[in-house]
C-alpha cells in the first residue's frame, strides 16, 4: 500500500498531533510513555505494522485535540528516536517537531537492575538514566551504573 494509503487507514484529524515513523510494533509503548490510556476523552487512532519504504514497517499514532509538548515527545527517544511528529491545526500541518535525545532521560523509566537503590518505590529522587552512546542507544543508571536493556526499560516505564 502507498504511503498515502497508510495515512488514510484512519481519517485526517482536524486538530492534534500525528506521530509517524514509529518502529513497527512500538506504538503501544509510545502510548504508554505519553500516558495516553483508555480513560482519556480525546480520540486516539493507531495503526500498526503498515508498510514503509524507509523502515520496512512502521506504526502511526494520531491524537486528536491535544498538542504534545516537546518535553513529552523527547521521552519517546527511547523507543522511537526517528519518529516524525506533526502538530495539526485546522487539518493542516502547523508545526513539525523533532524528537531530541537528551543527555539524561529523567523519570521516564526505572532502572532495570533488580538490586538498584531506586527499586524502592518510596525513594523520592528522580529516576535518571544517562545516555552513554547514541547509535545504537545505550543508557546507564546514574545511581548503580548498570547498563540498561532497552526492551526491559520499556517494561519499566512509568
Amino acid at each position, binding site marked *: 500500500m502507498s504511503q498515502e494509503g497508510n495515512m488514510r487507514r484512519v481519517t485526517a484529524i482536524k486538530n492534534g498531533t500525528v506521530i509517524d515513523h514509529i518502529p513497527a510494533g512500538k506504538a503501544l509503548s509510545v502510548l504508554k510513555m505519553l500516558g495516553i490510556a483508555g480513560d482519556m476523552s480525546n480520540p486516539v487512532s493507531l495503526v500498526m505494522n503498515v508498510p514503509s519504504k524507509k523502515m520496512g514497517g512502521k506504526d502511526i499514532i494520531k491524537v486528536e485535540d491535544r498538542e504534545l509538548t516537546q518535553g513529552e515527545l523527547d521521552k519517546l527517544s527511547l523507543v522511537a528516536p526517528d519518529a516524525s511528529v506533526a502538530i495539526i491545526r485546522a487539518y493542516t500541518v502547523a508545526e513539525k517537531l523533532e524528537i531530541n535525545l537528551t543527555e539524561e532521560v529523567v523519570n521516564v523509566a526505572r*532502572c532495570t*537492575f533488580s*538490586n*538498584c*537503590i*531506586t*527499586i*524502592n518505590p*518510596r*525513594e*523520592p*529522587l528522580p529516576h535518571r538514566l544517562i545516555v552513554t552512546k547514541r547509535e545504537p542507544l545505550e543508557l546507564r*543508571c*546514574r*545511581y*548503580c*551504573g*548498570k*547498563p540498561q536493556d532497552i526492551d526491559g526499560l520499556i517494561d519499566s516505564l512509568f
Partner: protein
Amino acid sequence: MPGLITMDDLTDEEIISILDDAERLLPVARGELYLPLLKGRILGNLFFEPSTRTRMSFETAMKRLGGDVVNLGDVKSSSVVKGETLFDMIQMVDGYTDIIAMRHPRQGAAQYACDSAKVPILNGGDGAGHHPTQTMLDLFTIRRAHGKLEGLNVVLAGDLRYGRTVHSLSHALTRLGCNVTFASPESLRMPEEIVSDLKDNGAEVVETDDLFGQINTADVIYMTRIQKERFPDEDEYAKVAGAYKLHAKDLDVAKPDMIIMHPLPRVDEIHPSVDSTRHACYFEQAFNGVVARMALMCRLLGVEVPADVEKAGGII
C-alpha cells in the same frame, strides 16, 4: 556536594596527591604523632550491612585526626526497620555530621546518598558496585611496596564477579598504568561492562582461569574470597575454590618483591603458611586503611595535610 562514590570522582593527579598525603600521615596513623587536623569534625558511620575493617578504620582515622564519630549502630534497631527511606535517613544524618561514610547492600546507594546530602559521602561499598576507599588503600599499599604503580603486573584473582573491591581497583590500576590480569573461574569472571569499559579506555586486559600460571611474572597478586553461596552445590564450590588457594610452596617461583594482598576476611584462599613469607602484605594493607581514609577525609573536608607533618604535629 562532591563525595567519593567511584574512582571516576578522582583525577589521576588527585589520586597521586592523596597517596602522597597518606604517606605523610603515616606517623599519625600509627599513633606516634598527634595531629588534630579534623578537630571538631564529626564523621557519620552509616553501615547498613556488616563491616569490620572499613567501619573501624574510618573510625580510627577520624579519631587519630582529633575528630569524633557517630554510628548508625545495628540496622535492626534503627529506623530502617520502620521503613525509613535512604533519602530521609541521609537528611537526618546530614544535619548531625560533617562527612558520612556509608555501606549499603543496594547498588547505587552511595550515589543516591550523595545526590541527597549536603555533606560529602564516602562510599564504603554499595552492593556489588564500588568500594573506592578500599581502592585508595590498595593503591597506597602497592605503591609503598614497589615505589611506583606504572608498569607493574597485577593479578586480580578469585571472585571477580561479585567482589566490589576488584571492580573499583581494576579501573584505577589500568588508569595508573598497571598491567592487569583477571584470574577467575568462568562463573565468577569480571562483569562484561567493566571489562568493556577498561578496553574502551585503552587498557590491555588478560582474562584467564589459571592463577598459578601467573605467579612467576606477577608483582602483585590480589586474592579475593570465593563465597560458597555463589555455587549451586558444595562439590562445585570445592572444585572451583581449590584452584584459587595459595600455599607458601606455590610461591617458590615468585619474584622476590612480589606481594600478596587480600581485602580480608580470608577463609581458605590464602593458607596461613603464606603469612610468614616475605610476600604476605594483607595485614599491612588492612592497617593502610586508616591512613588512606585519613587522607581522603582531609581532602573531602578541604583540610590541607601539612608538608612537614613532624613539625606540625605534637607528642601524644
